[in-house]
């Protein structure tokens, strides 16, 4: 169902608004985004914010896909270009380039990292049973990052594991 159409039917405020939200949050929600023309998704609860691209401060001798660090309200947040990391498409930086900032609690310590993607597309509702195992037939994205696949219409969305994405050690090995 199109989220835009839904949004129009839900009262923005007032006593009925809560019911509306109840209605759309059946199942888990995922934020989908584009790398080139492929669709990916992450758990929406991990999304801290969505920012436009700004030139980060370079980290000396960092891998190519680590673009640098930015200041997010006093927190130093590293920026990783998922397109370069997964080698799925060229990295172009313009005013439409988007940074999705994800926060995850790891071992009682919160980590926040921003990921550069081409565009944010939609919010996707999916029940657990709709998430299918990803077949292993090669591909650029290492299996450790993939939680599964979700079919949307004729397209398929790759669901990424947010925790693995946050592990810098993982980034180092690749």
């Amino acid at each position: 169902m199109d989220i835009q159409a839904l949004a129009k039917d839900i009262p923005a405020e007032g006593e009925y608004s809560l019911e509306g939200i109840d209605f759309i949050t059946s199942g888990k929600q995922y934020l989908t985004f584009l790398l080139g023309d492929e669709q990916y998704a992450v758990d929406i609860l991990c999304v801290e914010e969505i920012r436009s691209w700004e030139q980060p401060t370079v980290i000396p001798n960092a891998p190519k896909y680590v673009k640098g660090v930015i200041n997010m309200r006093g927190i130093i947040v590293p920026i990783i270009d998922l397109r370069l990391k997964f080698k799925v498409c060229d990295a172009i930086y313009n005013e439409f380039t988007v940074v999705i900032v994800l926060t995850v609690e790891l071992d009682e310590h919160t980590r926040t990292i921003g990921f550069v993607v081409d565009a944010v597309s939609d919010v996707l509702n999916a029940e657990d049973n709709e998430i299918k195992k990803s077949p292993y037939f090669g591909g650029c994205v290492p299996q450790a990052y993939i939680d599964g696949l979700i079919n949307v219409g004729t397209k398929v969305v790759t669901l990424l594991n947010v925790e693995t994405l946050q592990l810098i050690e993982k980034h180092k090995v690749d």
Partner: protein
Amino acid sequence: MSVDLSQFVPSFLEESFEGLELMESSLLNLDAGDNETIHSIFRAAHSIKGGAGTFGFNNVTEFTHLVETLLDEIRDGRREITPKDTELLLVAVDCMRLLIEAARDDADYDENKVSETTRLLELTLEMKTPSSDSEMVDIETDTKKPAGKIWHITFIPEHHLVQTGNDPLLLFNALADLGELTLKAKTDLIPPIAEMDATELYISWELSLISEASEADIREVFEWVEDECTLEIVSTELSPEPVEPNASSDIAPTSDSELSISPIASAIEKPANAVQAAEKSDKNKTKSKQDVGSIRVGVDKVDSLINLMGELVITQSMLSELGNDFEISKLEKLKSGLDQLLQNTKELQESVMKIRMLPISFAFNRFPRLVHDLSIKTGKEMNLVIRGEQTELDKTVMEQIGDPLVHLVRNAVDHGIESSDIRVANGKPKSGTITLDAYHQGGNIIIEISDDGGGINREAVLSKAIEKGLVDSNATLSDSQVFDLLFEPGFSTAKEISDISGRGVGMDVVKRNIQSLGGRIQVESEPGKGSKFKVNLPLTLAILDGQLVRVGTEVYIIPLITIVESLQAKAEFINKVSGDMTLYRLREDNVPVIPIYQLFDLPADTKDVNNALLVVVEADGQKVGLMVDDLLAQQQVVIKSLKDNYQQVEGISGATILGDGSVAMIIDVPGMIEMAIERAQEKQNEHTLDGALV
């Protein structure tokens, strides 16, 4: 009615540790006949005992009771305090600390130590008691003996006794008027705290009264409560020949002779344990401090914060008023308002920083005890002089500087101060002096640990270094270069390994710890006159004075403390050595040039050393010239961690946010030098590999 007592436990613990510290320092400064000090020690012990009793830390209560009894005897002048007693009390303070820490962490403690100390305390107390008993009885036999009988009274009140307005205390006071009264409360009927009704009385008493009063007189006292209690009154005649005191005085000599040996022996033995225990407890203490992470702040500091807050609010309301209907004519007013805001924020920042500052006496106050114990252990006589203990230092720095300081003081005692006869032979006062001094110097704090001992043997250090292959045998080194060798790993000139300084950690660890705090350590020494270790620390870890520099498009921050000077490289002073190593002649030094852009793989404006800007920095005694494109402002920066969300980066110690909101990296100078050396080595390896292939 039930109160959750556990919420008060942390403050009890905090107060107890403070009390213990007070006891310890007072004991160390105790002069004979100083009643005021004895009183304060007694009070500290007493309140610890009381608190421990309230919170059910029974072993603390029992142990402290013994300490208190001993102190009480001293306080009342019934006992002359001897050095032996002081030593025992110090060990007892250690035990109390152990017990309280065990109670806090719900952990085990060194039971041997506690039971041994308990035994010693009991022996010391008994040693005195028989004689005092006999004295007392002697007096009694003289004056009070004809006074009649000993009355044994068992008084078991009913639980609701106090509800009828009767107070046992009043009864006992009345009894005490009749003669000499001793009380013993029986507490075995007290139910668990949860089931307890605070309005009921669960205690019963065994009383003994030495009095000429008749049974009727005693019964009269209990007249009002007769129906509400079980009362038994039995009398025994006071025997004219006091049997008990005699018996005990028969035992006394034997136990006395036995005692007189064991306490001394253990007093000598003890300090060794005491040092370890002190160490252990020190560690625990820092641990607990980190766990709790609380800070005690003077009210004046909080007051000034509140004042500043008030001013800030006024400025804010003024500015928002101005903003409501702003016209260009009010621009001046806006400007002055903004100036005021700037002033307020600055002051607020300073005040907030001040809250983290603690006087260095927090780190220094463990040293009197340490030197006292070490003095006994080594048999060297020494005094400790502490100066500048009010100098303030950031809490985090303070916590981390403690251990290195302990090591330096130990080192001064062990290697610095000579034994008394050598000192006398060299015409120096018999007892050595160790001085701890702290003072501010240009945004840094300097801590000096100096001794008036024999100084560092330059030749011994040098020959050891040559033996270890650290220095070339025909190298000429300056004094400071030689003394710096002391900080090399595994370097020790001590002929024998003593357990005072040795301990497997060397001065290299001290140096590393100090460096990790962004500080430096220097040694000065004069043969025969003593040596001085000078520790230079930043005031706080959170803020650093930085020099902003530009390399290509990036701005980096070089900690001001590491910068020796900045200069424009002149072509004639640039030397290329062995192909690709660039050296810059800075007066007599040849300073290697490190181009930051190469190390960090950045595009840069200037790639040629000629006329480049060099920032000469020093770390680990190594000077290097960092090549930069431009020198920008100097400013204080707030250090932010890169590790939190990313990882440690070689050559970078952290990041900060500049005024325009952008992020700038802070250069880790020692790390950068290391990096440059590694690069050079890699290059050399490649060369040799190439050579081998050819």
